[in-house]
């Protein structure tokens, strides 16, 4: 079956703009995670959804970052007023439930000029 997909694969934007990153998890996976990864570092947790609700958003760096999962499937990560420091690879992962292996997408590389 299809794995986790993320679109776009690359996004270049200008400082101050708004961006949306999309994640399509594996069908039937109730848990969905967003991470971001900078060069040479491991993924950094941002937010976790169980179904439609954000069960843990402790990793969101500030209120410019917001994520939704309105129907418990596709999720969108939204970043307002982008800053150069937001440049990173944004990874989405899903799992059947929490506490077990996570399946990662290929990531979206965000570059803020």
């Amino acid at each position: 079956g299809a794995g986790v997909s993320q679109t776009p694969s690359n996004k270049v934007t200008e400082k101050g703009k708004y961006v949306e990153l999309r994640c399509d998890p594996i069908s039937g996976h109730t848990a969905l995670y967003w991470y971001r990864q900078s060069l040479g570092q491991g993924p950094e947790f941002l937010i976790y959804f169980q179904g439609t609700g954000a069960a843990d958003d402790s990793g969101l760096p500030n209120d410019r970052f917001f994520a939704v999962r309105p129907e418990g499937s596709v999720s969108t990560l939204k970043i307002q007023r982008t800053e150069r420091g937001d440049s990173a690879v944004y990874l989405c992962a899903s799992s059947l439930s929490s506490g077990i292996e996570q399946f990662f997408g290929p990531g979206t590389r965000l570059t803020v000029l």
Partner: protein
Amino acid sequence: SQKIEQNSEALNIQEGKTATLTCNYTNYSPAYLQWYRQDPGRGPVFLLLIRENEKEKRKERLKVTFDTTLKQSLFHITASQPADSATYLCAPGGHGSSNTGKLIFGQGTTLQVKP
């Protein structure tokens, strides 16, 4: 705050030898620990999960140990092959009864297996 440390320097070994990667954690009592492999330009791929009540787990040429006293996990690849060359990420998870499945990743160790 929670801290996960992996060998920051790349590990270079000869084909056929055993690679051993280390993961140490502090200020943390994870319920389990996962290991992932990441190739350049790709997302991490799950390899193994070991729980706090397990000392060792094996899968084909892979072996993971978990010492909750030392707060350390060791990841071994036996009979290494050039195809094993990648970055390996350690990720403890689970926070008691509020298990959200959130993973805290180490920075990863890059393994290079030379033929």
